[in-house]
């Protein structure tokens, strides 16, 4: 029996889809059987980031409406030898095409066959969000070091805490620009974690490579030399239960390193 993890944020554009793609990829690299589910019906793009767009035949709405079997709709990622699949969202209808009950049932079925189901949640707190959360066991909230993103993350955490079937959510701080945090132009990690008061599961530095890789349909986690890739791989390992210290944002700075270590200790 697998585990369904929803990746959510409230605010749009903080990197939910990129995070979903990379955590899924990193888990598959660890040898786990992973299914990525795009619930952003009407505005899908997890397939684009994964480079699987041309191979879509059926989608999530076809499955819940009974027009096809689940395995017919799943797109296999050939780079992973049967470990990574994608269930794409429909593009022609909108979020009201699926109900929370249908999503719950779908997740129950997928959990039979996969170790991890990574659900990419749409922005907002309406039906699309409710669908994405309905079948999930765990949640990861993605935020960036901006006041507006943290505010929305706070709202989402409040909603997630009401979901009795889920574990307390974990936090990823994405797109960290170290030089701006140091000058105080960006919220620093201490401020964010203190404010949101949930466990931090990873931090990802802002990296041009991430955008380049996404545009090529190759998740950055496949490239072992990028800093962002290591960050995503570390997150995947933490999901698997390993205890890995947070990656220092700047190697040379001992002060920052000890600060981060302190963080990890708190977690």
């Amino acid at each position: 029996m697998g585990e369904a993890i929803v990746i959510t944020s409230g605010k749009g554009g903080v990197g939910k889809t990129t995070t979903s793609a990379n955590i899924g990829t990193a888990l598959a690299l660890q040898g786990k059987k992973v299914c990525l589910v795009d619930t952003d019906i009407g505005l899908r793009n997890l397939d684009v980031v994964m480079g699987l767009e041309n191979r879509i035949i059926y989608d999530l709405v076809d499955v819940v409406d009974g027009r096809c079997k689940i395995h017919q709709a799943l797109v296999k990622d050939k780079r992973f030898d049967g470990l990574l699949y994608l269930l794409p969202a429909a593009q022609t209808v909108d979020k009201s095409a699926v109900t929370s009950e249908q999503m719950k049932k779908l997740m129950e079925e997928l959990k039979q066959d996969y170790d991890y189901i990574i659900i990419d949640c749409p922005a907002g707190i309406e039906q699309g969000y409710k669908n994405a959360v309905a079948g999930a066991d765990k949640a990861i909230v993605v935020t960036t070091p901006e006041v507006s993103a943290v505010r929305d993350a706070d709202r989402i955490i409040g909603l997630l805490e009401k979901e009795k079937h889920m574990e307390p959510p974990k936090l990823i701080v994405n797109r960290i620009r170290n030089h701006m945090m140091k000058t105080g132009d960006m919220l620093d990690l201490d401020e964010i974690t203190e404010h949101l008061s949930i466990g931090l599961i990873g931090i990802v530095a802002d990296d041009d490579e991430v955008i380049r890789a996404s545009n090529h349909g190759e998740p950055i986690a496949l490239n072992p030399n990028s800093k962002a890739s290591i960050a995503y791989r570390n997150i995947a390992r933490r999901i698997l239960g390993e205890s890995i210290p947070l990656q220092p944002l700047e190697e040379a700075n001992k002060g920052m390193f000890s600060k981060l270590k302190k963080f990890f200790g708190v977690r």
Partner: protein
Amino acid sequence: MKKRQNVTIKGTKDGLVLLLDDLCSYDELKRELDLKLSANTRTEDERHLISVKLEAGNRYLTEEQREELKELVRQKKNLVVDTIVSNVLTKEEADRLRAENEVVTVSKIVRSGQVLKVSGDLLLIGDVNPGGTVVAGGNIFVMGALKGIAHAGCFGNNQAVIAASNMRPSQIRIHDSLHPAQDFVPAEDKHEMECAYIDENRQIKIDRLQALIKIRPNLTRLEGGH
């Protein structure tokens, strides 16, 4: 044996007190009250109003009955009902009174978009994040950081206070007064252990917590002790 009186009139220095028997029927009581007050005609020349207190003992009077009795007394020349006292409360009234006087302890973080409302005092063990709201009929005490909106005395109590370990609210309301956050708060200001209250000029003031001891001595609930 002489029948027991259902209505007893007593004069005190504050005015008349009418003791109403609580065992007879309501109709009987009304009849006798009417009779007693009609018989008493000697004060006809005094034109100023005399206030009367009705003591109903262990009888429950509905709102309509209260009005009826007030009307009955008012019709009698220069008497006017000041208060009606009864030893009996309905369960709802008792529950409401208890809720208004209770300190409700809540242990959570009030996050953006959430509203926490209690009818008595609120003791919050946690933070109020920006965009979150706490509302109380009485006082609000936040053990953590107050960064959102707090509204104390929401049912019209302007004696209510708000206190927080870390006072950085986006807005403070007490009864119907409003205190928006200052536009420029120096970051080095700690705002630790502070309180908010309405001063004599009906303005919300923010002061250090210890000021409350002087300003609101009735916050103390301890009875007896040393």
